[in-house]
């Protein structure tokens, strides 16, 4: 067996303290969600920079992106990233709030390659535009589908399915 999971065990409090110390001002509202996840908020301009530093952190090292979800919160959109740290065997959940009229955020594809399809799905379903994504096509719905069905104000009309 090569890669050992949890080679650097740290308590959740220690990880949270480390994040608060190293990312002061960048990562906000850090809280521990039992038993093994840290939830935090990031301003959208800082996402790319913070993501790269989170991945490169020598002790915690959030290296694997698990999934990305787009959420419509009525007043704003949110892009949620769930990232795994092999060294500590813990997860971090990053929430990035996006304005309703301009749901755009930098892609994290070049930092975590797994983001590619997950960001396409969030674009397809919720209509969040990931700037700099190499191939931001629809993924689950047809190419000519109109609208983003997981938005709370989406109304399903026959015109939205031109291929049917």
């Amino acid at each position, binding site marked *: *067996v*090569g*890669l*050992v*999971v*949890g080679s650097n065990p740290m308590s959740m409090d220690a990880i949270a303290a480390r994040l608060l110390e190293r990312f002061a001002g960048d990562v906000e509202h850090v809280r521990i*969600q039992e038993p*093994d*996840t840290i939830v935090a908020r990031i301003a959208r301009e800082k996402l790319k920079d913070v993501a790269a530093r989170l991945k490169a952190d020598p002790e915690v090292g959030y*290296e*694997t*992106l*698990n*999934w990305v*979800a787009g*959420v*419509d919160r009525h007043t704003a959109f949110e892009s*949620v990233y*769930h990232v*795994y740290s*092999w060294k500590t*065997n813990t*997860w971090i*959940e990053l929430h990035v709030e996006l304005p309703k009229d301009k749901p755009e955020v930098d892609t994290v594809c070049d930092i*975590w*390659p*797994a983001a*590619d*399809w997950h960001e396409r799905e969030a674009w397809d*379903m919720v209509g969040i535009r990931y700037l700099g994504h190499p*191939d931001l*096509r*629809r*993924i*689950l*719905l*047809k*190419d000519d589908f109109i609208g983003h*069905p*997981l938005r709370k104000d989406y109304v399903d009309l026959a015109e939205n399915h031109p291929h049917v």
Partner: protein
Amino acid sequence: MYDHFDTPEPDEAVKLALRRIEESTARGEGSDMDGLAFNEVVVNMGPQHPSTHGVLRLVCTIDGELVKDVIPVIGYLHRCKEKLAEKRTYFQYIPIIDRTEYLASINCEWGYVLAVEKLAGIQVTRRAEFIRVITGELMRIASHLVAVGTFTADLSPLGTAMVFYMFRDREQILDLMEELSGARMMFNYFRFGGVRYDLPDGWVEKCREFLKSFPAKIKEYEALVDDNAIFLQRTQGKGVITQQDVIDYGITGPNARASGIDLDLRRHRPYSVYPELDFQIVSAQHGDIFDRYRCRMDEMRQSLKIVEQCLDMLPKGPVQIGSLRAPYVITPPPGSCYVGQENPRGEYGTYIESDGSRYPYRLKFRDPCFCNLQLFPKLLSGNKIADAVAISGSIDLVLGGIDR
């Protein structure tokens, strides 16, 4: 008027493949020894193709027998599972989960039920926990049987012999599940805080009989395949997933463990009664097709061991919380939670956001196959077409889960 001999307009994926050929030609790549680039052809494989095990479509750029580039196209089985959740109560949604990943549907139910229980703070009865582990591990065996069976049929050194034997034995598990839940595949068996029915009379004995007879059958399969020269030639050293791929793309399950990574959420993010049970995490070293096959076979043995322990330890008591029935209407407090659970194919995650009402505000599934499929362009490029079929079989995709 539709003319059957008209070439249809290429869709976005084919256009992308053609564009990539043009770009590589412009860079001077993708040409043969005479500098000719036009021997690269875009070939469409699927969505109706026996070796894709579902409605997966691969737009392949091939040069003779060599696969140069692959663009997977998914969504042919999309049934708006996440949208449906907006208009269903938490309880009403359980049978819909069964239809996502249909080969291991009880494990998917489990993931969803775990997430809701965590969000709403519901305790599960102890007997129900054991029944959940028993059913979950039985379905893991059934799912691996389909995975390995259809994969060997794709390779076809044995024709379809293996797949028939494996489906025959899988039927025993489905019979047990049918007796328990009333259905062969779409169980609708888990409830918040427990399971729907207790074990019927004589079920434990039947299950023990199965546990007794099955190890001999695993040996039989191995005797058929493991020393087969054609099988070994076609699987060893082909389609290697490196540890870096696992880290970059979030590969989980047997596909990751075959590359020498001991990640198993039953151990590393324990849920239910797994911490009390004795089992090993199966892993291999090379990460090639053969190792992925070996991992699945050895995992079946471990699952048998787990079921046996659970039958021995099975406590008495209720299988549901409350007086008679598990709660039908639940309203979790506002908040969100994510639970990852070890499905036969990897980490099956459920992310739920609640706004305090009877309906989930946002439900999101992290499907292991969706993440594993993302590696395909990298994994298949540079292989022969026949090997590409073998590799995609060894990854074990279920399109119902990918498309949701």
